[in-house]
């Protein structure tokens, strides 16, 4: 029998700020985290709203010497990871991880990271220096700051992690694939502790343009609207981006219990599929997406009746919303009509490579509070979107112990995870 994989710590940075408590309070208050983008010139793009964390002060956590060497997306990751380790009781008072005092050091600890864009704030600044001032003015840390795997390297160095390290780029599914791979590594005995999550910092002129040219971003966000991200709503017209990170500590249940760790939940099943259809658009029939959900439930040993909630990918791209609804009908059968479906990230935006990790954090908080957070800005379901969505206001429930979390990237990179409460 395969080992059960559990989450023993989480750390979150959302557009609302640092910490999971703040995130939950804002979601329960129904406060939109979407604002007009103000930190860079946006005349070249139409999606001018986003979930931007404008009051970010990394110096409260990290040294100025380190901050100047790395990009914003690494800063998010380092802080979220530290919070996760603290939450898991694996970060000592001397600001060192617990494994720094063991014989093997960090050799049995691994990292997986989901990311989409890399560190373009740093890169764009240094490219401007290159073209305006010459190569002598380019920060030498350009070599290590900008690329998506930089986060993995920074986490490894900062926390002395010396085991498996992998970074996953799969658009909005990258964070899900990173979490799944971490669970796989533990189940196969390749590590004893995995630090897994995702991070994204998309608010710079070039990075935002990359999103814009995908054709998937909301056009109603041109006015800087705080209600532009509308998954499954009749007024949906695309994605609204956000920044932040979420990281988790994963362990085998046996070793987590042996060290007396608090168990937040079990990652009970997971699966990924691809549509093999198009560069940008996912397959309309939703069959391969449904297959990921079905396999994840099979791996968890559950059927659809046991699901208390589904956290949908909810891109708000009209065709994708219809396709995701169709896929859920295929995977859940008649149960699809009665399982609550929510997209809480509609309140603050889609974090792309960190979208799934943020959903996972919210699901863990939902387990704690026995409340399904709402899908903000979902007022009137769009044609073809006929599930039991949780619109506008949170829904208290008698039982919230098992949920399905979905992620879907461009072209139909599908991932599904079953999260189950452990007693």
């Amino acid at each position, binding site marked *: 029998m395969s080992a059960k994989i559990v989450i023993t710590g989480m750390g979150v940075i959302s557009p609302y700020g640092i910490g999971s408590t703040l995130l939950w309070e804002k979601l329960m208050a129904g406060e939109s985290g979407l604002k007009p983008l103000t930190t860079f010139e946006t005349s070249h793009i139409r999606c001018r709203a986003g979930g931007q964390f404008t009051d970010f002060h990394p110096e409260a956590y990290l*040294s*100025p*010497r380190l901050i100047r*060497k790395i990009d914003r997306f690494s800063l998010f990751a380092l802080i979220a990871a530290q919070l996760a380790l603290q939450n898991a009781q694996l970060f000592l008072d001397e600001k060192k991880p617990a494994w720094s005092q063991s014989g093997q050091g960090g050799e049995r600890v691994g990292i997986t990271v989901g990311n989409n864009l890399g560190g373009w704030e740093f890169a764009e600044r240094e490219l401007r220096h290159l073209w305006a001032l010459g190569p*002598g003015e380019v*920060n*030498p*840390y350009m*070599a*290590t700051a900008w690329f998506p795997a930089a986060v993995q390297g920074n986490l490894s160095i900062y926390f002395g992690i010396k085991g498996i390290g992998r970074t996953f780029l799969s658009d909005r599914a990258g964070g899900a694939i990173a979490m799944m791979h971490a669970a796989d590594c533990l189940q196969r005995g390749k590590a004893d502790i995995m630090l897994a999550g995702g991070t994204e910092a998309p608010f710079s002129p070039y990075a935002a343009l990359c999103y814009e040219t995908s054709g998937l971003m909301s056009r109603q966000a041109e006015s800087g609207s705080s209600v532009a991200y509308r998954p499954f709503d009749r007024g949906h017209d695309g994605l609204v981006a956000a920044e932040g990170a979420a990281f988790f500590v994963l362990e085998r249940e046996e070793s987590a219990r042996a060290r007396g760790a608090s168990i937040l939940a079990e990652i009970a099943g997971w699966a990924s599929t691809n549509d093999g259809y198009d560069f940008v658009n996912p397959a309309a029939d939703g069959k391969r997406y449904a297959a990921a959900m079905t396999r994840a439930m099979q791996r968890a040993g559950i059927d659809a009746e046991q699901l208390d909630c589904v956290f949908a990918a909810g891109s708000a791209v009209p065709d994708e919303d219809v396709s995701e609804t169709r896929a859920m009908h295929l995977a859940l059968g008649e149960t699809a009509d009665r399982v609550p479906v929510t997209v809480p990230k509609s309140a603050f935006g889609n974090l792309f490579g960190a979208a799934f990790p943020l959903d996972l954090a919210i699901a863990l908080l939902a387990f704690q509070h026995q409340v399904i957070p709402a899908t903000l800005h979902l007022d009137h379901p769009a044609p073809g979107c006929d599930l039991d969505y949780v619109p506008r206001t949170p829904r208290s429930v008698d039982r919230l112990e098992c949920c399905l979390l979905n992620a879907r990237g461009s072209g139909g990179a599908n991932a599904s995870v079953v999260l189950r409460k452990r007693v």
Partner: protein
Amino acid sequence: MTNSSEQGTVAEQIQHIICQQTGYEEALTPETDLLNDLAIDSLELVELGLVIAKALGTKLPRGEVRQCITVGELTELVERVFAEAQEQSA
């Protein structure tokens, strides 16, 4: 470039810049090891060379900066480059 000015000698200026860049406040000696004592890795050494060059108004050969192991070696390199620049301008 100023060899000895209101800002102090080249050695003093370099030590001041190193402390600013790294956050170390202890007095440095010529024997202070850049990597082992100050945790200045290869990239930070290149960055340090650029900052020193800009502050002192000179250019430092990046390859030679990378080979410096101690504060003293870095100081000697800067002083040599400075002397060569003075000879050429004389």
